[in-house]
């Protein structure tokens, strides 16, 4: 059964669908985000985690004789949105711990290093990208220091930081980020599995890699062999951004994801419809979806 609940408690319980709603106004669009996770129909544990956060300048003007006090209000507005999904892998509860540790470390790191995102000249933008990559690297280091560098638990991480209109992504593993524009769904990230790698470099054909189970083996993961990909995409008003774990994409193809996102009136119902769809198709894995809708303000 899908239930609503408080994000922190229910997300830790991991057996229910947990919405985390966050809506803010940032001209010229309103970014409205929801995250939802479900253990699926087969697995007893949910090893996925997600987080949605906003980052803002912490300037609170408590008193002033400046006539137009509104000029200060922009300093309090959320300026960046952080969206992360993580899908843990590893025996016993290791995967769950790894994915939880990854999202916690990312948020913690960025909360300390966040001051740079306002100054977007070329060098500052690269510094910002370095910070985002470092956040993922920190989570990797933390997992490895906890569990060792060989054979311990690991996790995928797909992280998008939206500083309107630019969405920066750092990605490791086979969770995914997409955006929907004018009914067309485009996958921003590329899966980093051994299957994809072997097919890419021409060592194996796709069916051989599939038969060998190589699409289930991560070629890059936080806590394992980490080789994150980094990039960005400029969004437009009315775009819908979606992050998900492979519990969704193993059941729903791009056409179904696109039509579901397009039909949903808000991010909460988009998440619910997508997760319902994955469960109806078997729910073989944990499934997590984060949706951000960029509607004109």
């Amino acid at each position, binding site marked *: 059964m899908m239930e609503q609940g408080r994000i922190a408690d229910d997300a830790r319980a991991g057996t229910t669908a947990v919405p985390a709603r966050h809506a803010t106004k940032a001209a010229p669009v309103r970014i409205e985000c929801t995250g939802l996770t479900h253990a699926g129909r087969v697995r007893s544990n949910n090893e996925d985690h997600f987080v949605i956060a906003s980052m803002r300048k912490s300037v609170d003007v408590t008193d002033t004789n400046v006539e137009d006090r509104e000029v200060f209000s922009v300093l309090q507005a959320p300026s960046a949105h952080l969206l992360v999904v993580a899908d843990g892998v590893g025996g016993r509860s290791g995967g769950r711990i790894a994915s939880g540790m990854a999202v916690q470390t990312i948020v913690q790191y960025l909360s300390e290093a966040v001051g740079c995102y306002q100054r977007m000249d070329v060098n500052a933008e690269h510094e910002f990208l370095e910070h985002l990559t470092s956040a993922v690297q920190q989570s990797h280091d933390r997992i490895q220091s906890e569990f060792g560098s060989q054979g311990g638990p690991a996790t995928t991480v797909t992280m998008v930081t939206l500083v309107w209109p630019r969405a920066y992504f750092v990605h490791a593993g086979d969770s995914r980020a997409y955006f929907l524009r004018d009914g067309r769904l485009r996958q921003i990230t590329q899966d980093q599995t051994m299957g994809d790698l072997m097919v*890419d470099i021409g060592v194996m054909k796709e069916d051989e890699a599939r038969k060998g189970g190589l699409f289930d083996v991560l070629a890059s993961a936080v806590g394992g062999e980490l080789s994150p990909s980094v990039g960005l995409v*400029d969004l437009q008003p009315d775009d819908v951004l979606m992050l998900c774990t492979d519990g969704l994409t193993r059941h729903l193809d791009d056409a179904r994801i696109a039509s579901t996102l397009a039909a949903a009136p808000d991010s909460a119902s988009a998440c619910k419809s997508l997760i319902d769809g994955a469960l109806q198709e078997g729910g073989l894995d944990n499934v997590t979806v984060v949706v951000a809708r960029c509607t004109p303000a």
Partner: protein
Amino acid sequence: MIQKKICMVGMFGTGKTSLVQRYVYSMFSQKYHSTVGVKVDRKEVQVDGETVKLLLWDIEGRTAEQDIPATYLKGAHGIVYVVDGTRRETLDQLESIQETARRAAGSVPSVVALNKCDLTAEWKLKDKDETALRRRALHSIQTSAKLGEGVEQVFQWVAAATVNAGLAR
């Protein structure tokens, strides 16, 4: 350390991503993946004994439906135009792509990678095409992301040119 933003631009499917993959990871992918947005990679090179960090912006290619977004090109220190030597139209489009880039980034050092030179049987470019590029003050290098031919030279050339342009300012 000096940092230089280098943008890879051209029509879709010309091999921009493959050139970066070959240069940064010594890899060549047999499978075509179209880039969405920009993929960012880094590589350090030596120019006149100084370390330069290249920030390689591999920008999604121009298609019939979509031009190269100018916002990605802002602040570029150098540009690598990529032409697929087996598709004549990718060279024919270069002038208008160059104009888009010039409007967004100004006149910055640029080099043209005439890519896929390993496909000799399908090669559509003539010597006079390279001469025409020279007349437009565009340095060109034949490259093969598949075999690695000319790849180092392209990035080394643009790195040196951007550093020298910086010194000249």
